[in-house]
């Protein structure tokens, strides 16, 4: 194994969970109040300059792409300072100068076309025509940021020289000021900028790295044509670039950790959130954007790496049109590589339906699975999450900037909306039209939720726009439009959006089906009895709970559940588009319909009562677009068919975990079967998939809770069996086969 790959793998496995980029904290602490008198843009640029002048710039002898950050476990004294800093700033990222919570994307083609010097010249020339003080400060700040970056790159050039890496040093000297000319220079520049963002600036380094197969292709093809670069050399550079992303990856769990591995926002600078890189997809004419470089970036994916997450933009027919690429991607997917697939045909349709006209084909996805319009859009939540307050700002305005009205960062509690509808319906004693009335009541709750959300967001945006040049964030330095307007993108981007997720989708669908099946069709229970049982967490009524649990489920390709899924998602998305329209026309603001709930299905589940689908109080909900665990009784094809009952172009994001046992699709034949299965799903309009091979842990968990793992299939010998249906002896046998 190459030393760089080994080092990255080791970092992922052995880096101490509480390891922190201490230099960042210490240096930020030095200058915490040094620039308090300056407007924020200058406070930001000078703080960043101080950081970049003083942080370590280490180089290893095997670095092809240069740029590392240092992190360490803290001693008692350092810990004291660290805690004091957090107490002062809320978390280790804030300095009063830095704003933003990751989830941003840069105009990477702009960066590699102009280089740092070119971007600086543009800002200077814009500054020369500006008279407004706030805008001048904004542009001046940007100029200083470019200078800070140039100096930082030069410091690395010196380190490289000292380490005897002459070629790397020459590349760094070049891109410190000038636009890159070669593939290696361009990739080097991309990495340094990503490093600055992820290690030193952002709160949550979920940076999107754009479409490198597109924006780096001119460099690659030029180099190949001139003989300056071979395919193998390009692969080595890309692999090293991937390694670097893993070195800045923290361990631990920022969302669902326990006492031992929790690394919340206030703790880490080496965060466990990854960066996102998009490959393949279509261009503005709707034609394939796949090129040779797409294949190289795919080939270089190391399955054991966590970072970056490769988002493959599938488009209908890609499997046949680019057979070799599809083959590579499928191999990597079946090795549980950190990658996911989105369907261009769906995401683009959603954006077009909203009325987005520019940059539709350059859409991206941020972590975790949040769709974005690309460089011309700002995600309301993911961008600068607390826009700088101005002295004259009212308390009311501050409340909007702080999101004081939001219950959760993402929409939650839809099962609660369903239950409220159920309870009301139970009191109405209807003789007929029960299901229609339930639907009506549920949708009324949903509409209320959504309309309130967008009206709040609109208020927040209005507050931001009152003083758009007040804030400069790193993202602005890499967006043409921000420099042209001298306004922060979070206030002035062409589009502003926020995900509007149909939360607990499968639980809601299953709840409708359970009422339909048990109350209306089978008449096994009355509505009142059902409502009462759900309210009481099915206490003393295990029979009813199991009847609900074993009713038809979304994910089994049943006609009733598919029909409810379609009806619900259609009503939901129609409303999201309808309610967004006036805001879109006025402010470019809209809600992006989605099925994404991140990992909140666990947290929210913990806080929620029982649901009609037989879920007990406190148990997790179904995650994102995925059916509830144990619902996919007709295998992957049944699950895909259920998902396909969600009409194409309804939602722009929503993760579908596809868990497969590597043995079910082993060897060349298995690869062929799996590739075909997934391509068929996508060609039929499937939105998303992320593949993991079933782990031994899942099998052990299945033994303890068989009902939740009914869709877990294992290869027995010449056929497949449902794992939990196998006798204990055989289960143990299969588990033993999965031993590492």
């Amino acid at each position, binding site marked *: 194994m190459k030393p760089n790959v080994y080092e990255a793998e080791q970092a992922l496995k052995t880096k101490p969970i509480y390891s922190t980029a201490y230099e960042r904290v210490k240096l930020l602490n030095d200058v915490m109040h040094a620039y308090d008198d300056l407007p924020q843009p200058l406070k930001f640029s000078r703080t960043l300059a101080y950081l970049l002048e003083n942080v370590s710039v280490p180089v290893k002898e095997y670095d092809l792409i240069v740029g590392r950050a240092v992190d360490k476990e803290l001693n008692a004294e350092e810990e004291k300072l660290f805690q004091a800093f957090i107490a002062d700033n809320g978390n280790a990222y804030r300095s009063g100068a830095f704003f933003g919570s990751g989830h941003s994307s840069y105009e990477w083609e702009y960066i590699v076309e102009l280089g740092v010097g070119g971007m600086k010249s543009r800002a200077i020339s814009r500054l020369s025509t500006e008279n407004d003080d706030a805008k001048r400060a904004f542009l001046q700040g940007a100029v200083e940021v470019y200078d800070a970056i140039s100096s930082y790159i030069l410091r690395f050039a010196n380190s490289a020289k000292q380490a005897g890496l002459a070629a790397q040093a020459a590349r760094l000297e070049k891109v410190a000021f000038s636009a890159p000319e070669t593939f290696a220079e361009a990739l080097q520049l991309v990495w340094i900028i990503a490093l600055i963002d992820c290690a030193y600036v952002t709160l949550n380094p979920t940076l999107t790295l754009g479409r490198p197969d597109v924006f780096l292709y001119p460099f690659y093809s030029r180099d190949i044509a001139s003989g300056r670069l071979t395919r193998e050399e390009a692969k080595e550079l890309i692999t090293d670039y991937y390694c670097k992303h893993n070195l800045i990856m923290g361990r631990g769990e920022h969302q669902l950790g326990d006492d031992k591995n929790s690394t919340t926002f206030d703790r880490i600078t080496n965060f466990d959130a990854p960066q996102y890189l998009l490959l393949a997809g279509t261009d503005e004419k709707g034609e394939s954007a796949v090129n040779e470089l797409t294949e190289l970036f795919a080939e270089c994916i190391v399955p054991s790496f966590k970072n970056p997450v490769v988002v493959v933009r599938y488009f209908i027919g890609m499997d046949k049109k680019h057979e070799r690429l599809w083959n590579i991607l499928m191999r990597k997917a079946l090795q549980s590589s950190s990658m996911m697939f989105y369907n261009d045909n769906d995401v683009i349709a959603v954006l077009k339906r909203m009325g987005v006209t520019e940059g539709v084909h350059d859409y991206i996805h941020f972590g975790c699975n949040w769709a974005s319009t690309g460089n011309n859009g700002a995600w309301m939540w993911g961008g600068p999450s607390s826009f700088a307050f101005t002295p004259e700002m009212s308390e009311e305005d501050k409340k909007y900037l702080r999101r004081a009205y939001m219950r959760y960062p993402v929409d939650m509690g839809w099962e609660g909306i369903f239950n409220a509808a159920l309870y009301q319906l139970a009191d109405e004693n209807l003789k007929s039209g029960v299901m229609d009335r339930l639907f009506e009541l549920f949708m009324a709750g949903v509409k209320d939720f959504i309309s309130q959300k967008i009206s709040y967001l609109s208020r927040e945006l209005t507050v931001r726009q009152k003083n758009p040049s007040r804030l400069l964030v790193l993202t602005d330095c890499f967006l043409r439009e921000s420099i042209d307007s001298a306004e922060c993108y979070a206030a002035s981007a062409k589009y502003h959006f926020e995900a509007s997720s149909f939360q607990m989708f499968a639980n809601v669908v299953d709840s409708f089906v359970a009422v339909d099946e048990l109350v209306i069709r089978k008449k096994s229970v009355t509505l009142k009895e059902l409502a009462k049982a759900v309210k009481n967490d099915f206490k003393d009524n295990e029979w009813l709970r199991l009847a609900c649990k074993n009713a038809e489920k979304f994910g089994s390709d049943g006609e009733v559940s598919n029909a409810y899924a379609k009806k619900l998602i259609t009503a939901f998305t129609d409303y999201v588009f309808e309610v967004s329209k006036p805001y879109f026309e006025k402010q470019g603001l809209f809600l992006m319909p989605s099925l994404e709930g991140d990992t909140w299905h666990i947290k929210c589940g913990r806080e929620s009562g029982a649901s009609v689908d037989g879920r007990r109080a406190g148990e997790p909900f179904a995650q994102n677009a995925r059916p509830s665990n144990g619902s996919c009784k007709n295998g992957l094809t049944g699950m895909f068919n259920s998902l396909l009952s969600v009409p194409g172009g309804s939602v722009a994001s929503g993760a579908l975990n596809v868990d497969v046992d590597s043995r*079910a699709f082993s060897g060349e034949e298995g690869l062929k*079967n799996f590739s075909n299965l997934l391509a068929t799903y996508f060609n039929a309009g499937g939105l998303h998939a992320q593949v993991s091979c079933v782990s031994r842990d899942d099998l052990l968990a299945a033994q303890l809770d068989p009902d939740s793992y009914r869709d877990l299939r294992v290869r027995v010998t010449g*056929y497949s069996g449902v794992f939990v249906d196998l006798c204990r*002896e055989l289960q143990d046998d299969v588990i033993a086969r999965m031993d590492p």
Partner: protein
Amino acid sequence: MQTLISHIERCSSFDGPGIRTVVFFKGCPLSCKWCHNPECISFEKEELFYPEKCIKCGRCQSGCVTGARVVCGRIIPVHDVVVTVKRDEKYYSGGGGVTLSGGEPLAHNSYVNELIDALLKENIDVAIETSMFKYDEEILKKVDRIMADVKIFDEKKHLEYVGISGEKIRDNILKADLLGVPLTIRTPIIKGINDDEQNVRLTAEFASSLKNCVRYELLPYHAMGVNKARALGKEQKVFSAPDAKTLENLKKYQFTR
């Protein structure tokens, strides 16, 4: 006697090429001691009872909702099977289709004949997994592939463990070989019963002598039938899979052509 279907399994990647829907027929004239689908031996409707799932709700008569009491064996009209099969039709494009299994599909010849015709009319690839206890030319010549087991070469042992003549099965396979339909021959390998090299070598030689045999494969024993037999109120002897070393050695006889 009406044909009962035990269950239909979708998205199988093990019962023939590509992604397949497998129809399990209820009823089989053989009585292999290690049968992995003991619920498919009887031709009658049966009930499987899993006591660990029973909550003693006393509602057995109106239908158990807990999965403790499961009825096995349904009359499903051919048309309905085709409808289920067609739900996954788009996934069959990589060489997949339907596999008729069981139980013994050839023991349900009139239903199976009708089903095959209906599937072929829809251009769906049809494979049959059969013991070849009989030679049914009408059915066998129609299907796209045949998968048959040659379990034990020794006649006496075959009679003892399978319940019928192995020679007759091989005769039927030889006849089927003349039909020009691709054949897969398989041997379930059970420790101490048929995992001796001579048995596998003879079977492999037999398979390779067949003109239309495209594959010979070994299927190591698994105890999948034990739990189900218990739920049916029967006891099934637990056999063992061959040792890893033995199996590795025997694998040299597998072939694909």
